[in-house]
């Protein structure tokens, strides 16, 4: 009487999304534009790390082999990560992995909005996953992501309908990031398996609602929706940008300096 569980690769995709975006958002700590945003960004990051932990714990249990939440987070290499490429990008426009540029809050906000509007609908759908554990995680994550989405949507509107500079920055961030959302609407092998066995959510079914939400928010923010075509990223299939390697190198450095240690 084994319970139905989602394919491990699918759980890792969900967990990696949460961890990588949580890691990025936490980078604003002590660098936010106003104290309230330092706190908000830490809070969002904390929710995401929390989601990642539950998902990794579940994935570790499904996978067996002595895997733990930390072995999955700290001892997998870049190409084993299954997060959307969108979520690993630094907080600035398109630049090579070795480039340095100041963090841009518009990039952060636009990404959180684009992903939040997707994640909200994904968690909604996953509440009825046949994987009961995943459904329970979804119910909790849904509450959190509602706040994340409201936060980023409010700022998107403030920026778009704010000053000339904020409008231009928000538009530039949107132009940069929207093409990466194409990855939401491809179905990876892991997703196909999860959809087939009733444990996963079909992203294509979420698209119309995501599109409407995006259009409505952009209208309110007086921003233009770019074409959003271009390179189709394949991060969830393990093919990432040059940026994830640096993110993981930093995140995993201490844990890997002390293999086998407990903290």
């Amino acid at each position: 009487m084994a319970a139905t569980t989602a394919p491990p690769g699918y759980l890792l995709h969900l967990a990696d999304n949460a961890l990588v975006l949580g890691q990025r958002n936490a980078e604003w700590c002590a660098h936010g534009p106003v104290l309230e945003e330092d706190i908000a960004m830490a809070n969002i990051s904390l929710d995401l790390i929390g989601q990642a932990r539950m998902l990794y714990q579940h994935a570790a249990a499904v996978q067996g082999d002595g895997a733990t939440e930390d072995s999955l987070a700290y001892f997998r290499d870049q190409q084993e990560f299954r997060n959307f490429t969108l979520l690993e990008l630094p907080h600035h426009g398109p630049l090579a992995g070795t480039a340095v540029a100041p963090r841009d809050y518009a990039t952060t906000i636009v990404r959180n909005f684009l992903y939040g509007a997707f994640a909200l609908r994904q968690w909604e759908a996953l509440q009825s996953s046949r994987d009961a554990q995943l459904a329970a995680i979804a119910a909790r994550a849904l509450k959190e992501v509602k706040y994340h989405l409201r936060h980023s949507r409010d700022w998107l509107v403030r920026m778009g309908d704010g000053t000339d500079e904020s409008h231009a920055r928000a538009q530039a961030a949107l132009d940069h990031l929207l093409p990466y959302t194409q990855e939401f609407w491809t179905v990876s092998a892991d997703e196909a398996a999860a959809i087939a066995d009733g444990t996963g959510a079909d992203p294509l079914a979420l698209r119309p609602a995501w599109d409407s939400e995006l259009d409505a928010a952009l209208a309110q923010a007086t921003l233009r929706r770019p074409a959003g075509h271009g390179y189709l990223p394949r991060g969830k299939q393990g093919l990432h940008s040059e940026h994830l390697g640096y993110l993981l190198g930093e995140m995993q450095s201490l844990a890997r300096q002390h293999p086998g240690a407990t903290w």
Partner: protein
Amino acid sequence: DALQQAFDARIDADARIEPQDWMPEAYRKTLVRQISQHAHSEIIGMQPEGNWISRAPSLKRKAILLAKVQDEGGHGLYLYSAAETLGVSRDALLDALHAGKAKYSSIFNYPTLTWADVGVIGWLVDGAAIMNQVPICRCSYGPYARAMIRICKEESFHQRQGYENLMAMMKGTAAQRAMVQESVNRWYWPVLAMFGPPDADSPNSALGMRWGIKRISNDDLRQKFVDATVPQAAILGVTLPDPDLKWNEERGHHDYGAIDWDDFWAVVNGNGPCNKERLATRVQAHREGQWVRDAALAHARKQQARALKEAA
């Protein structure tokens, strides 16, 4: 005069002064200085701990550290609000910080060089802060006292978490234990200095005592801290880096070695390892955030204008 007498009477009766009450200008100024220094310390303090969020060695520790740093931001908010009840704006206080005119706790001018520093800051730095702050929960100024009650509760939680973090490391590998000891060696003396100069050299304290803002002297707090820390260090299994530290049966307290006040004053006066980094990082964040704050303001004004137009 009558106002001064009424104020003195409230102080003598250990009653609370509230924002709407009359208060002497020097009392108000002292409070603004102390509360804003404390608020600044909370937000500058996010930097050294924030330095390890991205590299926390487990997801559990990452979450604990994030939550802690978030709490510090929250403490900053309460404290700026408490200061605002004294008629000064957060912006003005931040401007003073960014201009280098306001102080913050000197302890945050030391770098966090290893993960153990996160635990040691929780255990020792927060522990010392609590010693300093618990008496302020009985401070004569109501909004400050109430903010401190909430803050002390959360700080105690942080201190326990810091200690628990170190305990886990001390139960771990030899490298982890060495990391803890090395960190204790670096932080112990600067933490003792956190209680401020010896009472003999601390002339401002008397008025603070009179006004019910300060309630215990620097040296008494320091002694209390040393006495509390010694058994905690023993349980943890670390050595405090003070060869003169020993129990004095007669005094009923631990004797401890001489503090290097030259080092303390060097850091206070701007020559610590990270003074420039901490302040410049704050200034940078504030400057680069200007457009975001401007956007929020511009949008709010537009919204208001639209609402007025509709109402018209």
